[in-house]
């Protein structure tokens, strides 16, 4: 997940690509986060101008959704499912052990910046629980050994 310093032109280009859509704000925010790893502060006035919405409205939307970040995450994002099906297969123990091993709390990033750990409520992998996702890679029947390997791969 790269986080180059966002240039105004790059932000404007992303905005221009989406303004024709009906309800363009979420697609814009996703595109900005895809490009910069977070929603840069510098984009806020450009978005509010382009969509004719207030700063409060924009802040309201960004802060409402779990996905949007105001600063970059670690190089990898590990999502561990906390939902019921995963709990029935020991998901809670796995999550707690992983957090303890990395020495972070939920939403925390390892000191070397390699991995950010986030809770997720269901990845649709409920018949092969417990489940997790490292960036866009889905993982089923995760145990501590497999988690250890993954974290090592991710450089945590």
């Amino acid at each position: 997940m790269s986080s180059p310093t966002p240039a105004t032109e790059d932000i404007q280009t992303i905005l221009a690509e989406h303004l024709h859509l009906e309800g363009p704000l979420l697609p814009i925010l996703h595109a900005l986060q895809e490009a910069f790893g977070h929603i840069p502060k510098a984009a806020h006035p450009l978005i509010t101008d382009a969509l004719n919405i207030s700063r409060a409205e924009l802040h309201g939307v960004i802060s409402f959704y779990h996905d949007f970040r105001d600063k970059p995450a670690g190089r990898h994002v590990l999502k561990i499912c906390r939902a019921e099906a995963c709990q029935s297969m020991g998901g809670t123990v796995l999550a707690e052990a992983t957090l303890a091993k990395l020495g972070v709390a939920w939403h925390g990033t390892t000191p070397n910046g390699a991995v950010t750990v986030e809770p997720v409520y269901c990845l649709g992998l409920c018949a092969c629980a417990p489940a997790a996702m490292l960036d866009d890679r889905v993982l089923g029947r995760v145990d501590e050994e497999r988690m250890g390997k993954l974290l090592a791969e991710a450089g945590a």
Partner: protein
Amino acid sequence: MKIFVPMDSAAKALGAEEVVAALRAAAPEAQIIRTGTRGMIWLEPLVEVEIDGVRHGYGPASPEDVADILNGTSPKALGPVEALDWMARQTRLTFARVGVIDPLDLADYEAHGGLVGLRRALEMAPEEIVAEVTTSGLRGRGGAGFPTGIKWKTVQEAKAPQKYIVCNADEGDSGTFADRMIMEGDPFTLIEGMVIAGLSVGATRGYVYLRSEYPDAIAVMRRAVEIARRAGVLGKDVLGSGRAFEMEIRVGAGAYVCGEETSLLNSLEGKRGVVRAKPPLPALEGFLGRPTVVNNVISLATVPVIFEKGAQHYADFGLGRSRGTVTLQIAGNVARGGLFETAFGITLGEVVHDLAGGTATGHPVKAVQVGGPLGAYIPVSGFNAPLGYEELDAHGGLLGHAGLVVFDENADMLSMARFAMEFCAVESCGKCTPCRIGAVRGVETIDRIRQGDGEAVPLLRDLCVTMKDGSLCALGGLTPLPVESVLDHFADEFLPRREAAE
């Protein structure tokens, strides 16, 4: 040699990509076709090899099994896949093609009955299309079970310059994965269903609001829409009929409440996903204030088969007012988990003991949560309940999206009740006070019970009533359901006998 390997994310999560790499290395001349999953997740990755025109299964396969699979000596051979008990016992209507075809091959889709329904609908008047859906008895598969035909009729009769079809693909309930499976395994059927919906109500634009937690489904759906557009299934001139329908995939942003239709519409418009009061119904004032059909993925994906085989054929399956098939998703602590499509009416016990084969851990079953995080925990004593909308209701349950999560005897039921409240506190949109604040107080009250304070029980029950009565949507309104079911059925676990008896 033809080899089929699923690209469904459950198969990938269990190592399908590694198996495919090993197959390519060992048999470079073989034709490897990626499919959806058959739904037998305990057998994934399930490799199928075509022998004399019949597909033979091998699973669960690992890269080490590849050599034996290719030379026909694998101990993981299962025989012809269609003859497996799990497959043979199903009535696959909605999921007929999933696991069978290449999800992104439109010709393969057509060769298996695809587009027959749409071609038939194009010959029909809009009223006839709605009548067909009504006759089929199809009800919303997202959870509420509202008759689809009535919803379509309302939108059809509304006068407006623009109407919309919105597919609710924000399947956030734990234990449910049918939406994901069909979007990854047979995306054209959802597209076809949306086009038919558009023809019937006079909508020319559609959106699929797809949760961001499903990156594979997003990728498959986006490619399928492009392919359908190039083939003229979508666009200004649907299959040369002169009728228009265009659609787009939109990605959610991690808010569970956006699975509620009015929150979803707000989110699609670029707002906070806050619930709207009803009325006005979305059917009259939905996306951007225009008449909008909001249907779940499975409801829309079932429409093509209704038009292909006829409404009566579909309605002939089922029980009471629950017509057609239900796509059970068997999950959690089970020996055999996966998707099983069958006529309504199968009992919970049959599903858990017979189909699922009991728990994965081998310990006795304690409870099944039916219908996601807002569904009741049903104890073993309730396993004679037949699965149907009204039938489960009578047992204090909720069929919801037909996901079943099984727990063994080690489950701590008070923790599950606490989690229901905690989840509601995290995911509440904040509009209704009983949900926003009540969920937080619920967690605290359950913590008091955990510490042995029996007097907190009536308080928790009272809070549940307030949340049910005072919340606009199902999140605040149904979170009490799992909590109350724990109090009703499992109180002796955490209360001294005297309080448990009250």
